[in-house]
């Protein structure tokens, strides 16, 4: 009994010390020495291609800023944390970055589900968070300290719906979604809405969960309805296998997807079964614009691989943060927040970035065709009337 009492005391003291530490409040980092920026992402889990790419891009951007003299003479230092792709872990590591490491801002995550879990922590501590590539609308609705430098799913879903209806002339679509992922559910909803509006019909909606190993049941049901296209708004790990199993079932309808497909591992899993599929993405490495080609070459020299869109967005997120730090001249949370919110016409690799009133970036999307290990550029679809007013609000 006595021992339990002592144990309880120790625990109480520990919790108390933690609580005290919290009060110190983050986001008010000292005004000298390096500027510490937190990065969190999936570095070892099921979507680790995402986390690694983004981390690479972020670090490359920070190095470029530092080489050019830093932020008013102060260097940027990035502290990385691995959330293993798990929402609860994402919340924990962001709390650690803010409370313990006293970072002035946080960059991450890729998967919307993980960002949604971590964002409230940053919001509560008044530390700005920039998500490079979480596209679910709810992410920035968490609060006024949460930003992103990518387009959002209502637009991305619409892009694919337009491409399917206008370019591929599809009348019937089937959807295969990742049931537990906010990203996948969001895209499904917006694709269906836009596709129906364009006169198409969603004939079947099948779901799976991350980590499933067999998709033939769903695919067989889809096949029996003979759709013109199959929309699979999931992440690469599952999509590669789905493509392979669709091929085994002799399904000929092309698969369509979003930026969650973008990882080299997609090809390892799906192989030639992916040929003829289409995906929407943030940028194309084939884009001849000098800014993009310079980024692609620098990245290739540094990491020996072609940068995917997540690397480009990680790079842009860090650059936007650097720009805001320069303009605000302070690492103070509220001031930095205002500076990020004031980002206007910033020339990013993935397009010109203007943060709108909802803290989202309004940017065009590209459609790529998958062919023999390559992403072949098809067309660029710009946000139209529906997305534009949001920018003016």
């Amino acid at each position, binding site marked *: 009994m006595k021992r339990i009492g002592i144990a309880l005391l120790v625990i109480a003291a520990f919790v108390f010390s933690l609580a005290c530490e919290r009060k110190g409040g983050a986001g008010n980092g000292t005004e000298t020495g390096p500027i510490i920026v937190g990065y969190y992402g999936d570095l070892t*889990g099921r*979507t680790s291609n995402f986390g690694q790419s983004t981390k690479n891009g972020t670090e490359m951007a920070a190095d470029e800023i530092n080489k050019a003299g830093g932020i008013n003479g102060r260097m940027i230092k990035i502290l990385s944390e691995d959330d293993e792709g798990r929402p609860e872990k994402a919340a924990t590591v962001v709390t650690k970055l803010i409370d313990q490491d006293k970072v002035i801002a946080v960059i991450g995550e890729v998967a919307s589900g993980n960002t949604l879990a971590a964002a409230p922590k940053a919001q509560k501590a008044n530390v700005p968070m920039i998500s490079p590539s979480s596209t679910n609308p709810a992410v920035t609705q968490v609060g006024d300290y949460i930003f992103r430098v990518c387009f959002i799913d209502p637009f991305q879903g619409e892009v694919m719906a337009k491409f399917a209806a206008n370019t591929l002339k599809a009348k019937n679509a089937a959807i295969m979604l990742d*049931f537990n992922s906010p990203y996948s559910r969001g895209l499904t909803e917006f694709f269906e809405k836009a596709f129906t509006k364009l006169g198409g019909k969603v004939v079947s909606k099948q779901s799976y969960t991350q980590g499933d190993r*067999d998709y*033939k049941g769903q695919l067989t049901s889809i096949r029996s309805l003979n759709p013109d296209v199959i929309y699979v708004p999931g992440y690469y790990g599952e999509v590669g*296998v789905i493509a*392979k199993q669709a091929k*085994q*079932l002799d399904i000929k309808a092309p698969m369509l997807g979003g930026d969650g497909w973008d990882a080299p591992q997609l090809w*390892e899993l799906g192989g030639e079964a992916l040929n003829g599929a289409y995906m929407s993405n943030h940028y194309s490495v084939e884009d001849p614009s000098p800014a993009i080609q310079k980024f692609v070459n620098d990245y290739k020299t540094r990491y020996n691989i072609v940068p995917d869109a997540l690397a480009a967005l990680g790079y842009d997120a860090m650059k936007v943060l650097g720009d805001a730090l320069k303009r605000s001249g302070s690492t103070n949370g509220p001031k930095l927040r205002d500076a990020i919110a004031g980002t206007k016409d910033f020339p990013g690799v993935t397009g010109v970035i203007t943060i709108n009133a909802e803290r989202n970036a309004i940017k065009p999307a590209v459609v790529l065709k998958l062919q023999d290990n390559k992403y072949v550029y098809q067309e660029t679809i710009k946000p139209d009337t529906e997305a534009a007013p949001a920018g003016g609000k």
Partner: protein
Amino acid sequence: MDTFVQQLINGLTIGAIYALIALGYTMVYGILRLINFAHGDIYMVGAFVGYFLAFQLGFATGPSLLGLGIVLIGSMVIAGLVGMAVERFAYRPVRKYSRMTTLITAIGVSLLIENLFVARLGAAPRAFPQLLREQSYTLFGNAAISKSQILIFTVSILLMLLLQWIIFKTRVGTAMRAVSFNLNSAKLMGINTDAIISITFALGSALAAAGGVLTAQYNPQIDPLMGILTGLKAFVAAVLGGIGNVPGAVLGGLMIGLAETFVVGYGQNIGLPTTFRDAVAFAILILVLLFRPTGLLGTTVQEKV
């Protein structure tokens, strides 16, 4: 109709894999009354051994039937040795204690294997090299069967027949049956029970490893935690068929595979979301335990007083 046939083929494919794994559960239970919770992880080990063998031996570059055969047999042998090692170093030392001790040890071994692999290799899924040139054959209408499915059916039937032959036609098999009947009497009859138990683990593990490599041809994604859910479902399959009963394990495996696929294929029509696929196996487990605790083909075991 062809959709139904297709779902039948899909279900039997995953069912065959469950059956291969369930055999290991049932054999070990048969002789030791132990539920070897690490068995699902041996299935994972088998897949990973196959993965590394394919790369080390240079078969990862393109499809090759010879490569597939070597990788399959190699991974069965190595996983068999791993199974024997687990028995020798984890289960044998605690065998003299209560059954609960061994059971908890099994859970510990399972966690140990999983986390060792996560620590060494990371949790990110890897793509298993495709050793079979994938092709589909149309049966009738739209129903198609792919090469990897044909492979799964052929190899698993061959292995099951081989196992049946070992158990009923060889001296080792006779000894295994004797041990499962009564361990102490078998020992008194001069049977080297330790060796027989070792062999049983090796056989079960090799079958699980075959399941691992075969699945990886069908679905190229492998990761260190792939054995958890698949292992649990195979365990349910073994209980459904009657744990300790070899044909029962095969029957149970096929039934679980079919049940799962039909939930995915037709569940939506009756308001059952596809995400219930995993719940179905466990619902079946509960029903079996309630209404027929000995399983479909199991016999009542009389507790000695």
